């Protein structure tokens, strides 16, 4: 993005993700939504992040990214 001129650069990115990656991202939203304990609710119920590692935690995932850069001007 360039603020000096009236021209903008718009980046459109499409990620084709593996199913594991999708599950991970979906669960991450839930995970981050659970905030720290507060005085009325106490500690929230635990949510585990999606994991596909045997004998460990985390994910192994891949994605393919397609990116288009568009130049946009106000004129």
């Amino acid at each position: 993005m360039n603020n000096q001129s009236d021209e903008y650069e718009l980046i459109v990115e499409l990620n084709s993700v593996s199913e594991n990656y999708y599950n991970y991202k979906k669960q991450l939203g839930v995970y981050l939504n659970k905030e720290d304990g507060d005085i009325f609710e106490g500690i929230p119920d635990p949510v585990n992040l999606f994991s596909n590692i045997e004998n460990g935690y985390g994910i192994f995932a891949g994605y393919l990214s397609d990116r288009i850069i568009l130049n946009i001007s106000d004129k």
Partner: protein
Amino acid sequence: MRLAITVAILSVWCSFLSAQKVTVSGHITDSETGEVLIGAHIYDTESGSGTASNEYGYYSISLLSNRVYNLGCSFLGYNDTVIVLSISDDVILNFSLKPGIEIGEVKVNASAYKQPEKHGTINLPVIQVKQLPSFGGEFDLMKSLQLMPGVQSGSEGNSGLYVRGGGPDQNLVLLDDVPLYYVNHLAGFISTFNADAINNINLIKGGFPARYGGRLSSILDIRMKDGNMKELHSSGSIGIVSSKITVEGPIKKDTSSFILSARRFMYDLITMPVTKLAEDNVIGYTFYDLNAKLNHKFSDKDRMFLSWYSGDDSSLAIYNDPGDDNDRSKVRIKWGNMVAAYRWNHIYNQKLFSNLSLSYSRFRFNTRATDIQDTGDSEYNYTGQFRSAISDLGAKIDFSYYPGPNQSISFGGGTLHHTFNPWTNSYYITEGGNVILDTLTGSNDFYAWEHFLYLDDKINIGRFLNINMGIRGSWYTSDKLNYKRFDPRITLNLTPGEKTQVSASYTEMQQYVHLLSYSNVGIPIDLWMPATKSVPPSLARQLSFGYTRQLKNGEYDISLEYYNKRMNNLIEYKPGVSIIESTEDWQELIEKGGKGRSYGFELMFRKNSGRTTGWIGYTWSKTTHQFANLNNGEPYPYKFDRRHDISLVFMHKLSDDIDISATWVYGTGNAFSLPVGKYNAIIDDGQYWEGEPERIFYPAYQYEGKNNYRMRSYHRLDIGANFRKETRLGERTWNISIFNLYNRKNPYFYYMDYNWFSGKTTLKQKSLFPFMPSVSYSFKF
């Protein structure tokens, strides 16, 4: 002190009708106030057999005609009365008992009086509630009940009752026969019941009579005072948390009376003006409750009651933007109950008593936020509302029938019409007079009928065995939905000796409403949901055994109970969901078909009379829950599963004017989930840094096993003292209490504290209430 009154022998003549049975019936009242005494005992002092007065102070007993009886009447905290009588015809005999200054100070062993069946029930005299140490100057019924075995507290300071492994939503709280949905003030730290307006409290945790139903774990039957029938009186108190006033008196002496009782939280009267002065903004919180009751005796056979309760918590925040005089916003949140009831007692004949009640009960939670930005030509106006409510219209009739000396039957039926407004969210925005946004989202209203019929037969077989058999049928109907159930209820009481009682019971209970307790705005939101096709009603089956023994003529008693309870169709939130923010149907956001299991032993040793009274209660219990999709389908400890729970309660009268008390409680720490590991998770938040997506590492905790860890144990000592004094106007009492005397830092919740610089994670504990003295002043005249 025993007060024996010998009344003239009534109609000794007609002795030829020797083996005929006659009925004596009437009301039992307090001689000073005319308040009915609930659960007072009428008994033949020779055989010990007898009966107890019902919720309206009515009793009926069959005797042989023309035999001389010494009929005793007794009630805890009152002087015993014995009447000598011999009758040949049915009579109405009303007892009015004189309150004893000491609670059952010296009970002379005047009789072979059998103690009443007490299987699974707890009766707590209101006088005792006022003797216990207070919290912030409030005498709290619910917190006093938490000191009984089998009844637990949840989190620190909370007045919710956890009875035999069940949650607060599984308690049927009846205020003068009407179910109440919400029993808290001040986020649960204070209960809604104003002790000044209460006559009697009965908590049933097992062996439920068939006339009660609709919740899984307990029945809390609270009866409001009817109002003094003799003289006008007022009483009140000023405490640290709230102030209250009660006025009661006769409208027509011995015929009709009223009582009016109001309570209000006091802080906001000070804090609102102060915050306004300091910041030009207003932040306030308050609660109030109001009890009102009218009653009228049309005759000895008809009496009518009208009662009203309403209580609300509300919080208000007004914010004026300091940089912009034209920007004003306001948030008002209000939640609470309203209950109204009309009841009519009718005595058909001396053996048949009935009570009809018509009632309305409503709980609602409303939030309204407004924001006005007045910029001259284009005014911006925002209104957002969140609403949730449940309301019940009810009608029922209860009969008590006393066919003979060894039997009493209660039967009846009724219906409840539920209206659920689970929740709605609405936004309305205008700019310069044009509507920009007008939306309404949420869950549809839902209507349901709950009908019930019951029959309960209490019968003495021989001298030693008493059987209480009952059945309760309930029908729940809604749009294309039908559930019906017959819940069996049976209790056996065996009295091998006069002082010993062995009992057993099996009961089933049905619950057609579910509670989704939701909280992350700082105010607990209770959402009541109906049973639906995919979320069936919950069911509890309970088996219990009991043993009680009186020692030293009833000065002490000891009781031991065992219970085993299984619960079906429980619900739980799916991990991490937010019901209000979600657009999905609530039935998709919960885990269904949960199983619960709870079992345990309860031991109580109680001293009932003398200058020193009190008890030692101990509960050993285990409660687990099991859901197909939680904890890999394995059972896990319930959040408030508590292996050991101890309460020591001590009350002592130093003189007529001063009494002191102390309570000590101990409980195994609450269960919570502790992570077993931590790793860095990647979050890409859509931001770019030098043309590449920005990646943030965030600590992710890994859990294994729900509620796998325990907080440290909870214990606390409270003390209190009452100083009474007669003044020219009446009686005044100073109460001084200290909560948490040795300043134990009890866990309220634990949290993981992550230090971003060192990368270290520590488990930290938050505590709520430290050493806290309080004082209250009360008066009576």
